[in-house]
């Protein structure tokens, strides 16, 4: 029986590559009827809208400004009329807004280069580059969406900086980076060069897994023109989403800390971010579209789609399969521990990476006390017990059981033989507990 996953450490389950969509070229999704652009799709403060209801906007027009230092601009992804500026009031602390635009057309702003021609020369000086990145609302394109210009403007202490573009995907089934490397390889090199210029270094590495032979071939070809950028092929089955491990393997050096880039001198970014950098700097194109992978695991079908930000899910899924929200679950991000999307109207935003859908099970099967979850938990918790308490709404007991130690790794739910959604139950428990902490009169 082929093992579908590899366990790295206890609590970290890495699904092996099982791409359903790696061979699908990137398709463009037709413009939806309306888009709903959230203003909180990045880390930091939500952007503040600068347009009003019923005003007419063009594609690429700035519609919300960054609020504060750690924030990002947001641009319209279609041409049309703003129907409303919706307030989403789920969480009472922050008012979350979304701008809803009815699509009429696709007319881009004037100073945006919408052609496909490759611009190789990097003419702008570094501050200009950073400005462009900021103005175009580029964020680090992973689940956290940290504003990139902030990252880039921090002073570097080390002299020898090396840029590493990591293409080893950490999310299974997601093949958007793969396609990008195949179809827009040279743009990636230019983007890398831009970053190298910003960081004032002349050494760059693009790390690619050995098994992606087509990608390697393509990139190696292109790399002949870019002597400063080295392509390093990584051995199969080694798991490189862990930064320390990646750096150790590529350069042989031990990087002490796992969290911040800066003191170490190694700066890592991923493929999608690099591409966004290219587009923002060379073409002055704001971040209004993303390439995401959509897969249906039931029918084992997937596609790589180029989607405008704010597109609701229905037209996206229509490319792959039909989605009945009552019968299927939709998960964004990591298949095991990603967040579930409950409404089909939820829009794609900068944080979207990949969407999966698979059938829901109606009944919650009972725990058979097999103790797999206990063996799997890296924090020494007993997930079956936590889930049991959540089901019984015994929240006082949950705090005693240290539910707040849970790191959301999702291994417990993954290994449960009866398929209980243990992680979801624990997440619910945590949510309720923090609610109760903040507002002791919350109804349980």
């Amino acid at each position: 029986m082929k093992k579908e996953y590899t366990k790295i450490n206890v609590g970290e389950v890495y699904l092996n590559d099982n791409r359903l969509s790696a061979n699908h070229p990137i398709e463009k999704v037709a413009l939806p009827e309306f888009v709903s652009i959230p203003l909180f799709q990045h880390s930091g403060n939500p952007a503040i809208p600068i347009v009003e209801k019923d005003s007419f906007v063009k594609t690429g027009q700035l519609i919300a400004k960054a609020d504060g230092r750690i924030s990002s601009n947001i641009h319209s992804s279609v041409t049309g009329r703003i129907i409303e500026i919706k307030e989403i009031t789920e969480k009472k602390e922050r008012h979350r807004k979304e701008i809803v635009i009815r699509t009429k057309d696709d007319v881009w702003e004037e100073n945006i280069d919408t052609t496909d021609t490759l611009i190789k020369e990097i003419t702008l000086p570094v501050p200009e580059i950073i400005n462009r990145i900021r103005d175009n609302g580029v964020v680090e394109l992973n689940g956290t969406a940290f504003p990139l210009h902030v990252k880039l403007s921090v002073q570097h202490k080390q002299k020898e900086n090396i840029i590493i573009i990591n293409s080893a995907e950490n999310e299974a089934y997601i093949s958007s980076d793969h396609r990008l490397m195949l179809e827009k390889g040279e743009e990636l090199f230019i983007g890398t060069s831009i970053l190298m210029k910003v960081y004032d270094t002349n050494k760059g590495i693009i790390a690619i897994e050995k098994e992606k032979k087509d990608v390697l071939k393509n990139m190696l070809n292109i790399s002949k023109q870019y002597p400063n950028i080295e392509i390093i092929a990584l051995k199969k089955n080694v798991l490189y989403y862990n930064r320390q491990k990646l750096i150790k393997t590529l350069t042989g050096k031990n990087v002490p800390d796992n969290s911040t880039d800066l003191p170490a001198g190694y700066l890592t970014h991923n493929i999608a971010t690099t591409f966004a950098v290219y587009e923002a700097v060379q073409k002055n194109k704001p971040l209004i579209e993303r390439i995401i992978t959509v897969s249906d695991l039931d029918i084992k079908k997937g596609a790589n789609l180029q989607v405008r930000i704010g597109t609701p899910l229905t037209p996206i899924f229509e490319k792959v399969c039909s989605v009945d929200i009552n019968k299927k679950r939709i998960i964004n991000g990591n298949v095991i521990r990603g967040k579930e999307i409950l409404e089909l109207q939820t829009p794609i935003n900068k944080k979207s990476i990949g969407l999966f859908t698979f059938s829901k099970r109606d009944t919650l099967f009972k725990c058979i006390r097999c103790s797999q979850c206990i063996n799997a938990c890296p924090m020494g918790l007993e997930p079956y017990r936590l889930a049991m308490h959540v089901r019984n709404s015994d929240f006082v007991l949950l705090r005693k059981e240290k539910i707040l130690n849970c790191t959301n790794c999702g291994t417990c739910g993954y290994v449960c033989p009866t398929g209980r959604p243990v992680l979801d139950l624990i997440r619910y428990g945590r949510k309720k507990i923090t609610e109760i902490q903040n507002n002791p009169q919350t109804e349980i």
Partner: protein
Amino acid sequence: MKLIELRNNLTRHRIMWNVVIALLPAMTVSFYFFGISAFILTVTAIVSCLLFEFLIQYFFIDKEDITIQDGSAFITGVLLAFNVPSSLPIWMMVLGSLIAIGVGKMPYGGIGKNIFNPALVGRMFLLISFPVEMTTWPLPLQNSSFLTDAISGPTTLGAIREGMLNGKPLSDIMADAPSYMDMFMGNIGGSLGEVSAFAILIGALYMLYKKIITWHIPVTFITTVFVFTGILWYMHPDKYADPVFHVLAGGLILGATFIATDMVTSPMSDGGKIVFGIGCGVITVSIRSWGYYPEGVGFAILIMNAFTPMINQLFRSYKYRDKTNTFSSTIAPIIKNRIVAFIFIFIVLLTILTIVYIYTIGPINNAHKNSELDKIRTVLPAFDNNPIDSAKTIDELVFYTAKKGDSIVGYACKTFTDKGFNGRFYLLVGFKPDGIIYNTIVLEQHETPGFGDRMASDWNKQFNGKNLTEFNLKVKQDSGDVDAISASTISSRAYCDAIEKAYLSLMKNILKKSDVKLASEINEKFIIKDISILKKVLPAFDNDPLKEVKTISDLECFTAKKGGKVVGYAIKSSGKGYCSTVWILIGVLPDGKINGACFLENKETIGYGDKVDNPQFLGQFKGKLFGKCDFEVKKDDGDIDAVSGSTITSRAFCEAVAKASTMFCDSLSTTKNEVKKDSVIAPPSKPTIYQYTDKSIFNNVLPAFNNNPLTEFQSVNGLDVYTGRMNGVVTGYAITSFSKKGFGGKVIILVGFKPDGTINNTAFVSSNETPNFLEMVEEAGYRDQYIGKNPATFKLAIKSEGGDVDAVSGVTYTSRSFCDGVQKAYSSFINIKK
């Protein structure tokens, strides 16, 4: 639409169906050994469990939430079927399934929430409600055992329990138990699943490989049983069976690997599992050794199931992946807490027990004393002393003398019997001064419920006023005069046994009359009452052979005639069996050919002795000629195939046939061309029994000699006789003798006689006796008692059989066979031409 479960491969379906696969070897073995009934029972159990789970869920819980396809009910059915004998009626199997699912699983909330293992709940319910059907185990390889009358018997553990109750030394019982290989492969009596350790182990290894169970519970469970029984056996090998036997016997391996490891009812942490395994092992051994049930695995697992939630609570997970958590800050306190908790609970319990004991033991004893006096009053005529003051204890029986004034009005004896159905129970028997029973009552018994009531009604009045030299103190089924209580024959027999003990002791020790004979002993012969049994063994006849009975050499012989001509004889003979005398009837034609043989009375161990009563065994006698054929079992170099596992009973049968044969040849045979077994045409000129390689053995046995006795050989009465001379004068005769009554078969000994007939010394030459026991005989100096004795005055039989030879305790068979050999040697000695 296929349901994708986005998980790793160990889904609940895979768990369950892999367990089913692991059970397949044991299922196949059970079908092979127990035939079609095993298959039907297993299928019934599975279907019933699934059906009941479906019905209960559909009607009582939730129409939508039906989970029979997860396989757990299936497994419950299989395991339940594995725990019952193959002769269980089908409706009981269905009822057991109903209880297993409906009581053991569903009321707790269905799978995952039950505390006790459902299969065990069902089994215990069946065991307690239908003890007879659940403890009658058909022996393997008798296909279709519930369609015909099966031969059944107890499991190996049950046989040991029963044997020990009957007073058999453990060594004798163990020797007749199945071999380890039989137990391992499965050729023994037992429930469907427990017989073949081998098949179950294959399944267990498969489950370990598939990571469905971990090693912790099975290994600790079995190891604890092994170690615990090992310690007991080492300290008292005569009371406890050896550990290998215990591991292979009963449902231990099945229970430890399939039932105790059930995920829902066993602890989740590794440490908890080890505790669980040890607890199960300890309780199992305790029940097996000292409890009333011969098998303890089921109860042990159920008891430990009850502790599982507590173990789960105590063995919480404490691993953290953070470097800041050190041992002392996180783990040590937890361990300290547990130890403290256990010690505290232990002390509290002990204190409570002690207090309760101290406060109640006084009143309890007083109550006993008072009631004891009252009870003595009921069994004796009026008296005015306090008999308890003058109580005398003789051989574990307590005698109380009751007086009125100065004259003795009677004796009350507190007696007991170990032959009760559930062990020992105590009787109080009141005798008048001449030994006639005045009254009897029961003091303490653990028999089946209701027995006490039945005993206390008018039943025991039948003993009153009876003189045991005239009243046959055996139940009517044993051709005595006592009316047994219906369905309590064993208890009634035990009751008589207790009275007999009391009477014999009274006669011997108090009234000092030592040659009293019980009526039951005199009338021990079996009386044939109806003619049909004669028809079984004789050819067609038209007279009434019961009227034409002759007694020749203590054997009764019935003549059958047709038209006035003798067509055959039916000879009633007996042989000494495992725990009783075996009576047989053998039909022989006038020319000496055996027509048929059958049992008249077979009170041997159930499951072993009655195995012999089968057409295959009995049929091999047919056609053999009296006088020409060697009626010994093949083990003893004879021609008869003994029944495996019932050697001693088979031997008894052969002994009886041989007796009949000798009687026939001596008295009834009309033809002259039979050849006596022991006579030869010409005496052989070479040793026939044993070839010695050097004469050193003679040095020990004969008085001083300086010739080579091997050269002076003669054969007398079939035995080899060697003469020892000193300077030409005969100093002694060394006779190689043998006996077939050895435990392992033939025992060859060498006896040295002085010319006047006294025994100089003896030696073992060769035998198949168990080495341990042979050593015991030698170490006990058994043979020393023969030195210097003259068999003319020294009775060559063991003391319990009326002779003068002290047998070695626990090695009766070897002692007896040696004695028998010496006897043979002596009869040879007498015939030596001097």
